[in-house]
């Protein structure tokens, strides 16, 4: 019965992998930031299923919140697109 939860764990990790692949691939840095926020949500679910509430609280705050915002600040203050050449 609880195997479903283990499957959910693997599922959330795969989701995180998918999002991180998209984040690395995309040229638009804002899109990359949004993807990494999605990856953080997926990882937060994974940490939750790994039974680490303390880690989830710290991780959510840092990854969904602080990283996203601070990187948005950085993109806003610098430039948005990764150019070729």
């Amino acid at each position: 019965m609880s195997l479903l939860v283990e499957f959910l764990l693997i599922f959330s990790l795969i989701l995180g992998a998918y999002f991180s692949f998209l984040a690395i691939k995309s040229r638009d840095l804002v899109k990359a930031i949004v993807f990494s926020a999605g990856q953080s949500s997926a990882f937060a679910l994974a940490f939750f299923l790994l039974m680490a509430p303390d880690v989830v609280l710290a991780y959510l705050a840092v990854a969904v919140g602080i990283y996203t915002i601070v990187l948005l600040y950085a993109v806003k203050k610098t430039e948005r697109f990764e150019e070729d050449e």
Partner: protein
Amino acid sequence: MSLKDAVLGVAMAVFLLMVSVVVVLGGTGWTPSTEIRPLAKFYLENCFNVFNRTWWAASPEAVTSMLWDYRGIDTYYETSVFFLAVIGGVTIFRVTEAKLHRKMDDVGLSLIVKTTTRMVFPLVVIVSASVALHGNLTPGGGFQAGVILAVGPLLLIAAFSRSFLEENLKLSKDRCLIIRSVGLIAIALLVALPLMAGSLSLMQNQAKPWSQALQLPEAVGPIWTSGTLLFFNVAEFLAVGAGFTLLFLLLSAPEEELKRAIGL
């Protein structure tokens, strides 16, 4: 994506996959792990063992009791890593004066967001205080609560503006630095508390048979403080909240003014 990139990526992936297979097959013990390691068992057994208080940390939360008691000095230095990063940020962004000359009504998001944020702000602070004060009983603790506390000023920065924070809550950069320093000094004093009480051990929480000294009790009246853990959590809570506020105040300073002030 050129062929070279693809080859590089595939090579990395293959290497790491091999490593992980090696790890699974022999490196990390039981597969699947249905048992825990003996040291972890020790922590789980003893962190709130009310029947044999020799090894206990007086907190039912194993992670917090490890963070601030069993492996407390790690957390002390971890706090200092964040402190040094904040100082590094100040070193780079420090300017004497950079002010925004614009009216309050033009800045920020729409009225709806402003009102909602005004309403949510105290709730955020209350939630964070609840997390911090119950940090030694339920998940959460100083850092987590501090980050939630920082949500409040961050929401205000987004919905109103940076100057709103400085005018309405009187939170300037210097004040944030003061709050942060006070919190950190409190942590340092709490670490050195047993030293002042005549024991030779830093960071001691509960008295032990082999190291008796004047210690804080595990509960003050009805409040379960777990010795020093609650105070550590509160101090860290203030320090982290103020630190994040400081960093984002620095980051949200208007770019043109900053450039001019730095002299670029």
